[in-house]
């Protein structure tokens, strides 16, 4: 088996793709090779061409796409220009693709077992029954408990992590030589992400298959990959052993990405020592007591306890981070604070006034002081309003502002969030995600609020943009001295921003404390697990070494 | 063999009810003609056109073998034919006849109307008597010139009371609901299948007293659209097509294998005006409109020359008819002058109503609208469902409306009484002339035939001068048959008598 690493399993040679005559090359002159048992990471910002590359490897270009040069060889034989039937054998049979957002990859009206079995039957001659059995067996191997029953479930009955496992099973069922994972863990909780990636890598190792992990997260690369390719605008700008890349990237672009992933300042120390704040620790700006929020489950008598007896407080100038897995109730807490939702029990005191019982009209005046930045940047902006109208909307809460004053303030805000002035006339869909986020922030800050709820300000953004937004928020906070509730998945940003952290699970706060303390000495198991799932770039080497050892042990056997 | 004895008829509609007490309609008259036999009838005579007509001068016995009218013309005695049987085998006798009278009287509909309105009978028991098992006598309070002729009417058939009585219930003591959908009588046919809106099947009564009908079965199919009936007869899918449009008849006359029978019957088609309300309370206005009708054009383009001008309120085939008072040519100038005299030099706005689904009336309405417009009379056409139309003109709410009717008793006084007597319930045009009223009254009572004729002539003269209606056409009655259908005959109710027909 020594020849495995010598002849490449998959070779891509000078591959270029465009979309019709005269268009920009979406992929240009891509070359790399993948050996058996090797894991290649591909990173790059949105639109770099990563997904397109994955689809090229299966010869499944999007409509209008075409190869303009290059070749793809699987064990020395080209896969371009062969018959449709032969290509079909390769797809799923020898090269398998695992895409983003597993739920969307499964036909919603068929059971998942049947869908796995179907892939097997497309590549192996076997009966319906055998295929089903093989599917169930595989489901065990990808870590699904009670596979017999789960096989009969429909995709919507599964959680995201479970659906992702099913998709992995579909990819693995025919025993492929190459597995392509395109952002396969995007949108999954950190804990689940780790489980899924571990599983994927383990299966590839067991099969002796090569894998390509496409991701935005250098942490993943650091932990799982042997080599990494950095893509930018359709080309591979750097292709390097992971260890060497992390130590010293050759290209400035790679360096920029790496820097962005490594932001680790701890600004809160200075803040806590601020004597002005020290003086009044007894009167927090916001005080939440035994908050309760129930949602009825449609069609049943049951309820979801989305917030279950939650208490916390935020002092002036302080940032509290609320972390926890998806569905733990973080957004719900935030929405209760700004009264988008009415709570079912408990109280919220803001600057001495109980805002849960306040009449809606009275609270409207209060909104100037409590604002929120929404999770999804695009959908939180009315698509029919230009940026200047969007930013001006909250200013109507201040009746003293006349038209000219409003315009002036809008210009100031645009400047404040570091957007170009010309953006005022533009509509949201013409903005990039980062710009949209900034507009959202500008809106929230328009009335100079005392307290802002940031709901996942950094998710769904590119690494570099993410870092920029965090910087922006931090600067603004320092400048304006407001308090904040910072809701997030992303522990990296918690470290950069928060003074204190509250960990939520199943609607309850399981642990709360100073940021530094939580990160260094968490008490609860759940918090520990949450922290362990983080894949910091720095700690990647150790795990990779472990994997290396394991692999070497396997090769020797 | 079936094809020879089965006749398929395409009709615009199936009868609404099989009961003879149901209000008279054209489809209903056809049922009555074929299913119910009456006490008396007219003798038949063959016309020059080969069609059999009723001889209004010669009354014959039907279920009554003989009859006697008292000299004072106040009573009539019927001697029933013996051995006459219904299709169910029940025999005709005085009890059957008396029960039929009793039912008619109590149903308070058609029979009751003739007896009370024409004969002025007030009490059943004094008027109707069983003399013996085969003799029945009817006595009137006054003399009546119509004492014999009324009994020929198709609404006065005799029921097979033995059968009908089986279907009486407490809630329905006169079997009104059973008779609405079933027949039991002494006519040439009985109805074996009645699917309203779809078809009616007549089967021959083997016991019919004139002998068993030649056509053993008649299937009447409803085809509301006349063009469909044309296509059907052309294709040979049906043997007979009723009520076709003149244009279609003209087409069929040229078609091989189809024969068109035309009768200048008793229909009077007119536009009635509300004589009681302005502007039609002014005789000059009414005359003016009559001068505006382009009769020649209508005759040609709408009727394809199958009709004749209506020149009198009395049907042209009825005794006493006179056309000598008709003077309405198409003369817009004269019409304008009349309107000016009447105080409408610029014309006026008014409405003209016609029945939904009546194509002929629609065509004429459009023509009249254009014609009246020539003298500044601006007509709005109202197309109304039949029921609404009747309701509206009954209440005097439409100024002008089409009215097509026939009087089935061939007597000028009877006809005039229906439409021109100011006391008549159906004088919807509210025409009122004291002289006419008085002439009609005496005409209904007097038995002096020559004087009646003179009086009726005067009635026609006054009517034509007073012009209560816009006189249009006598559309006649036409029937298209396959060429192998023989023996077509015509009766005043315009319903076809299948007994007379045969297939070659």
């Amino acid at each position: 088996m020594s020849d495995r690493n010598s002849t490449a399993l998959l070779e891509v040679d000078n591959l270029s793709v465009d979309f019709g005559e005269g268009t920009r090359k979406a992929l240009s002159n891509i070359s790399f090779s993948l050996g058996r048992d090797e894991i290649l990471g591909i990173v790059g910002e949105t639109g770099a061409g990563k997904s397109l590359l994955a689809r090229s490897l299966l010869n499944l270009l999007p409509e209008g796409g075409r190869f303009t040069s290059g070749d793809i060889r699987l064990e020395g034989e080209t896969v371009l220009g062969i018959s449709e039937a032969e290509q079909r054998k390769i797809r799923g049979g020898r090269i398998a693709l695992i895409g983003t957002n597993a739920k969307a990859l499964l036909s919603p009206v068929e059971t998942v077992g049947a869908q796995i079995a179907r892939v097997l039957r497309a590549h192996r001659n076997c009966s319906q029954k055998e295929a089903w059995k093989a599917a169930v067996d595989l489901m065990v191997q990808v870590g699904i408990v009670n596979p017999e029953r789960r096989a009969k479930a429909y995709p919507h009955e599964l959680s995201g992590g479970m659906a992702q496992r099913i998709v992995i099973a579909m990819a693995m069922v025919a025993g492929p030589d190459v597995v392509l994972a395109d952002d396969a863990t995007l949108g999954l909780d950190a804990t689940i992400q780790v489980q899924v990636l571990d599983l994927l890598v383990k299966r590839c190792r067991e099969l002796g298959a090569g894998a390509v992990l496409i991701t935005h997260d250098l942490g993943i690369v650091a932990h799982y990959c042997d080599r990494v390719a950095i893509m930018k605008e359709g080309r591979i700008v750097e292709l390097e052993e992971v260890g060497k890349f992390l130590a010293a990237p050759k290209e400035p672009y790679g360096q920029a990405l790496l820097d962005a992933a490594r932001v680790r300042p701890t600004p809160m120390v200075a803040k806590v020592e601020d004597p002005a704040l020290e003086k009044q620790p007894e009167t927090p700006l916001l005080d939440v007591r035994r908050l309760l929020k129930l949602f009825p489950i449609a069609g049943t008598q049951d309820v979801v306890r989305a917030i279950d007896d939650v208490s916390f407080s935020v002092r002036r100038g302080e940032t509290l981070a609320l972390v926890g897995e998806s569905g733990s109730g973080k957004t719900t807490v935030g929405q209760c604070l700004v009264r988008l939702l009415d709570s079912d029990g408990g109280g919220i005191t803001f600057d001495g006034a109980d805002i849960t019982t306040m009449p809606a009209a009275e609270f409207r005046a209060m909104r100037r002081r409590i604002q929120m930045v929404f999770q999804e940047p695009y959908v939180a902006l009315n698509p029919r309003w230009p940026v200047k109208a969007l930013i001006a909307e909250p200013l109507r809460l201040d009746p003293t502002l006349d038209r000219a004053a409003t315009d002036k303030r809008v210009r100031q805000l645009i400047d404040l969030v570091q957007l170009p002035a010309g953006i005022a006339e533009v509509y949201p869909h013409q903005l990039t995600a980062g710009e949209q986020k900034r507009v959202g922030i500008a809106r929230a800050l328009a009335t100079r609020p005392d307290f802002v709820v940031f709901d996942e300000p950094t998710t769904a953004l590119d690494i570099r943009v993410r870092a920029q937004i965090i910087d922006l928020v931090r600067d603004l906070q320092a400048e304006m001295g407001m308090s904040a509730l910072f809701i997030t998945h992303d522990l990296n940003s918690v470290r950069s921003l928060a003074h204190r952290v509250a960990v939520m699970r199943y609607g309850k706060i399981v642990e709360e404390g100073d940021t530094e303390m939580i990160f260094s000495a968490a008490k609860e198991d759940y918090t520990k697990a949450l922290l362990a799932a983080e894949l910091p770039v720095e700690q990647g080497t150790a795990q990779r070494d472990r994997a290396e050892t394991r692999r070497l042990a396997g090769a020797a056997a | 063999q079936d094809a020879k004895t089965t006749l398929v008829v395409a009709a615009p509609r199936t009868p609404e009810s099989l009961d003879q007490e149901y209000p008279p309609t054209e489809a209903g008259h056809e049922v009555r003609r074929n299913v119910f036999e009456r006490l008396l009838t007219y003798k038949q005579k063959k016309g020059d056109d080969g069609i059999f007509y009723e001889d209004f001068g010669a009354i014959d016995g039907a279920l009554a073998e003989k009859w006697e009218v008292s000299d004072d013309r106040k009573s009539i005695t019927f001697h029933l034919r013996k051995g006459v049987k219904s299709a169910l085998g029940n025999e005709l006798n005085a009890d059957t006849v008396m029960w039929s009278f009793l039912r008619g009287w109590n149903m308070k509909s058609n029979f009751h109307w003739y007896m009370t309105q024409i004969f002025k009978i007030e009490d059943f028991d004094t008027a109707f008597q069983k003399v013996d098992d085969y003799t029945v006598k009817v006595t009137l309070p006054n003399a009546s010139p119509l004492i014999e002729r009324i009994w020929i009417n198709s609404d006065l058939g005799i029921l097979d009371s033995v059968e009908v009585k089986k279907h009486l219930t407490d809630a329905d003591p006169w079997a009104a609901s059973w008779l609405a959908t079933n027949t039991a009588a002494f006519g040439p046919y009985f109805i074996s299948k009645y699917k309203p809106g779809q078809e009616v099947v007549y089967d021959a009564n083997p016991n019919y007293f004139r002998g068993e009908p030649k056509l053993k079965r008649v299937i009447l199919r409803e085809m509301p659209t006349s063009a469909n009936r044309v296509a059907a007869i052309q294709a040979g899918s049906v043997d007979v097509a009723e009520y076709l449009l003149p244009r279609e008849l003209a087409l069929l006359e040229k078609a091989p294998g189809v024969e068109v029978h035309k009768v200048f019957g008793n229909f009077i088609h007119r536009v009635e005006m509300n004589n009681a309300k302005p502007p039609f309370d002014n005789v000059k206005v009414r005359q003016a409109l009559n001068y505006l009708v382009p009769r020649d054009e209508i005759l040609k383009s709408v009727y394809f020359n199958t009709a004749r001008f209506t020149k009198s309120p009395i049907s042209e085939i009825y005794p006493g008819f006179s056309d000598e008072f008709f003077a309405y040519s198409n003369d817009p100038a004269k019409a304008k002058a009349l309107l000016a005299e009447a105080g409408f030099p610029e014309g006026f706005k008014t409405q003209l109503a016609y029945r939904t689904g009546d194509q002929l009336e629609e065509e004429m309405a459009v023509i009249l609208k254009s014609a009246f417009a020539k003298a500044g009379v601006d007509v709005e056409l109202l197309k109304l469902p039949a029921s609404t139309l009747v309701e509206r003109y009954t209440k005097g709410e439409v100024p002008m409306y089409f009215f097509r009717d026939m009087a089935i008793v061939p007597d000028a006084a009877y006809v005039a009484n229906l439409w021109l007597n100011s006391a008549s319930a159906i004088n919807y045009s509210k025409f009122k002339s004291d002289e006419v009223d008085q002439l009609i009254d005496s005409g209904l009572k007097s038995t002096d035939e020559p004087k009646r004729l003179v009086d009726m002539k005067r009635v026609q003269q006054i009517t034509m001068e007073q012009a209560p209606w816009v006189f249009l056409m006598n559309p006649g009655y036409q029937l298209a048959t396959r060429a192998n259908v023989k023996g077509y005959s015509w009766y005043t109710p315009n319903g076809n008598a299948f007994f007379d027909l045969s297939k070659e």
Partner: protein
Amino acid sequence: MTVAVANLGVYWRAIPRPLRIITSRLLMLVPQMFGVMMVTFLLVRMLPGDPALLLLGNMATPDTIAAFREKLGLNLSLWEQFVHYVGNALHGDLGVSIFTSNPVVTDLLERAPATLELITYAMLLTILIGVTLAIISVVRAGGVVDIGSRVYGLAAGAIPDFWVGLLLIYFFFYILGWAPAPFGRIDTFVSPPDTVTGFYTIDSLIAGDLNAFVSSLGRLTLPVLTLAIVNAGALMKMTKTTFADIYRSDFIRHARASGLSEGTIRRIALRNSLPPIITLVGFMFGFLLGAAVLVETIFAWGGLGQYAVQSVVNSDYPALQGFVLVAAAFILIVYTVVDILYELADPRIRV
């Protein structure tokens, strides 16, 4: 009380899903039908024209009119009439048609098969044309069928059905003489087969009467074609949109990347398009019932539609009322069936 409710809930969830779907939908039918009855009643009560007068016509005297009105129940208060109406309707009594003198139920039952046969075949043909064209034009995008169907789709919903019917009659009956004369469901000289299903085509096959079968099939051709031509376009357009969306969806791309054959992929896409197609088909059924009014008139079909037109022309209250009620009930039932099928076809819907 709450315990009882909770218990009920437990029992409820113990019932198998399909049964649960069906019962819950059937229960919803009851208030809906009541509402429909109310609307029907009020609607028809507002029609103008006094049927008593019309019926009595020339012979009308105030006495007879009054008696007649009483017989028809026209002199009661509106509310009393409604209570009567609902009570009777529940016993299957929709009154007696003023013009046919038959119980309206009898009339409707007699005519219903004609209309049902017509719209069933029309529906089948519509689905066949619409769905087939939609699938081909998505799968072979840019092909002849795709371009043709785009042109056809433009005309969809733009062609009046009565006009198409007339053109077909002109060409196939008058000019070419291929089609039988446009009236009725079967040739006049052919006797209809014994009623089993009420569908002449099926009944004649059951009776083994080939003559009747050919004749009734021939009569069906033009009206069915009329309805299909007019409606298939809309179905095609909508199916095409859904099918195209699904055909380009992530899971289809994934299926392709997994190496499934095109045939299988098409089947998956079709299976996924089924719920929206079912909804559409249900909606079209209702629509066809309305369209049948016109088409039946042209082809003298003798079904419910023609009955409806006649009852409007004649101010036949009970008949019109009966028809509107039955039509609405029919549509409600179709919608219910559609909902049930939809929920069965789509496992995502919670019951």
